[in-house]
């Protein structure tokens, strides 16, 4: 394997009081791959996202992203370095418009100076038009109907469109690594399938984009991931392709057994 590792975590542990949500986890992501992160509830998947995206500071261990040690940096810094995530429970700003939500993701490109925002309105409006165009393109790629609703509050839209907007918000800043935390939550099988296809198509928007996907729907995992990591009790239980994971007796016993049969 001579692939470039974009993210390399070593010895990652996260303790809450006496509870170890992650213990001594080694995990890497190759550039351009889709990595599936699976495991039963409470196995530390979301905690892993929270640690890498800077919400929690790991108890021990190192996170290296594109050759730079980002362990324990603030979420702001980590966003600027090129990692973006979505949330399990949609955390869009429901009262703000679609455009506003997408622009929050574009924060690194916005000019936040007082002078240009408040006094030189011409400059601001030029940047605004640029933003409208950029958001419009992204939205059109996911669902052309959303473009017309760009200035409606997100709260007025159905769940699948909210998920799409979350994807747009995550992708608009052209990240190098995208964390998707259960994008299928709250959607039907068909909707999930559709959304995943859309996300994979969007990969081309951000060149060389790597994705880490937390997902319970095993057929989604099978279809889209290049590689899987199975977590259990905060530890890595298994690592390999989906077929290897599905075939592994230990994993089956710990977690997959029944669900694999359902899928078949």
């Amino acid at each position, binding site marked *: 394997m001579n692939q470039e590792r974009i993210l390399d975590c070593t010895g990652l542990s996260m303790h809450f009081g006496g509870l170890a949500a992650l213990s001594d986890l080694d995990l890497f992501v190759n550039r351009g791959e889709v990595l599936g992160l699976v495991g039963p509830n409470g196995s530390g998947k979301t905690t892993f996202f929270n640690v890498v*995206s*800077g*919400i929690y500071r790991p108890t021990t261990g190192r996170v290296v992203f594109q050759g730079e040690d980002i362990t324990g940096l*603030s*979420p*702001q810094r*980590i*966003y*600027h370095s090129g990692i*973006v*995530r979505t*949330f399990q429970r949609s*955390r869009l*700003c*429901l*009262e*703000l*418009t679609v455009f*506003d939500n997408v*622009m*929050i*993701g574009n*924060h*690194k490109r*916005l*000019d*936040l100076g*007082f002078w240009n*925002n*408040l006094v030189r*309105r011409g400059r*601001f*409006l030029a*940047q*605004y038009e640029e933003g409208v165009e950029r958001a419009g393109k992204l939205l059109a790629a996911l669902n052309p109907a959303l473009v*017309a*609703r*760009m*200035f*409606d*509050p997100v709260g007025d839209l159905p769940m699948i469109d909210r998920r799409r907007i979350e994807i747009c*918000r995550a992708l608009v*800043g052209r990240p190098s690594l995208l964390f998707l935390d259960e994008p299928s939550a709250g959607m039907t099988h068909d909707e999930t399938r559709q959304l995943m296809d859309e996300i994979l198509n969007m990969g081309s928007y951000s060149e060389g984009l790597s994705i880490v996907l937390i997902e319970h729907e095993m057929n989604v995992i099978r279809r889209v991931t290049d590689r899987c990591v199975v977590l259990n009790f905060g530890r890595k239980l298994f690592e390999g392709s989906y077929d290897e994971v599905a075939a592994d007796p230990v994993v089956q016993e710990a977690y997959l057994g029944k669900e694999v049969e359902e899928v078949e």
Partner: protein
Amino acid sequence: MPGSIQHNASVPGAVPNPGSAAKAGPLAGIVAAVAVTAYAAAFLLSESQGLILALLVGGAVAAGLAVRVGAHRAVARSLAAHGRLGDGLAVGMVLALMVIFHDDHYALFLVATILLYVVAVLGLNVQLGFTGLINFSCASFFGIGGYTAAMLGGHTGVPPLVILACGGVTAAVVGSILLLPVLRTSGHYSALVTMAFALLFKVFMEVNDAFGGPQGVDVAPMRLFGWDFSSDVEIGSYTGSFYLPYVLLALALAVGAFVLVRRIERSWIGLSLDAVRVDEVAGACFGIDIRRWKITAFTAGNFLAGVSGALYAMMLAYISPANFTFADSLIFLSILLLGGIGSSWGVVLATAVVVVVPEKFQVIQEYRFIIYSSLVLLMILFRPMGLLPRKVRAYRRQA
């Protein structure tokens, strides 16, 4: 609420697709503004309590009818189609009232008070409405501006216009003492911090002799280009109340503050403030610097409160700790909640109602606190978005 509907119109609505809305003429907006001006003038002119009650009821009925027939939508469309018209009409209304009441001290005093309160509540709107920072000590920062004016005007030769700025700066600087606890806490906890400060401020002013103690201090009046604001205006044979220049200056401040706050709202800064309010964690994950925006909003809001407090003190010529109690902070907060949290035009409307109605309708003067608090309570329970709910952001003025 009298007049609410007409004002509703002046919120430049966010029309998502400018092409889809038929362009409305300016007539409806102008008619509404004239009607509101006439109503306000009639209200300020009335002396008898019966007449005022009749006006209040009539205003409410008229507003209700206007909503029934959909007139408010026509006005809203008209003003939305002509972005600057609403702002111009609002300024025109104040100027018209100045001409009508040029020698009526009391009416002009009320108009100036409204304008200055608007500035302070706009500051609170940036803090609470946009950023979600709870500030229960707005009246204290208003008071810090006032005391700054009293001290600088009484003991130094600083030009009064500079004193106004100093009032704002002092409020912002004193506010920065609270920054650390306000930044480190959120929700209930920062409510406690500002509440403790409001109580502390009033007690401090009462027990401290340097600031006049409970009796308060005199404040030197405004002077501008050698023109003393404490004497009546005389231009040729024309005589006007000495409150006229205060109204003008307060209007200038209010317009300035309004433009500033609207521009903040319609910029990436406003977007960042909203993101901080709605979800700090998600915001931080998209690179939003939570601390920076909290500091910005808190400081800007206190600055506005301080500037308006300084001019208010000069106009009153005398202030005491009783002017700046926790209850007064609650009034500022009530105005914001009644008008519609985050809604700048809501602030203007609610301030006018809250300041003028109990002053003119003396029967309720004694009961005003209980009436406001009940109204706000009902508002939170049944219409939490306020009288003129905040509209979704439109960055570009529909011209």
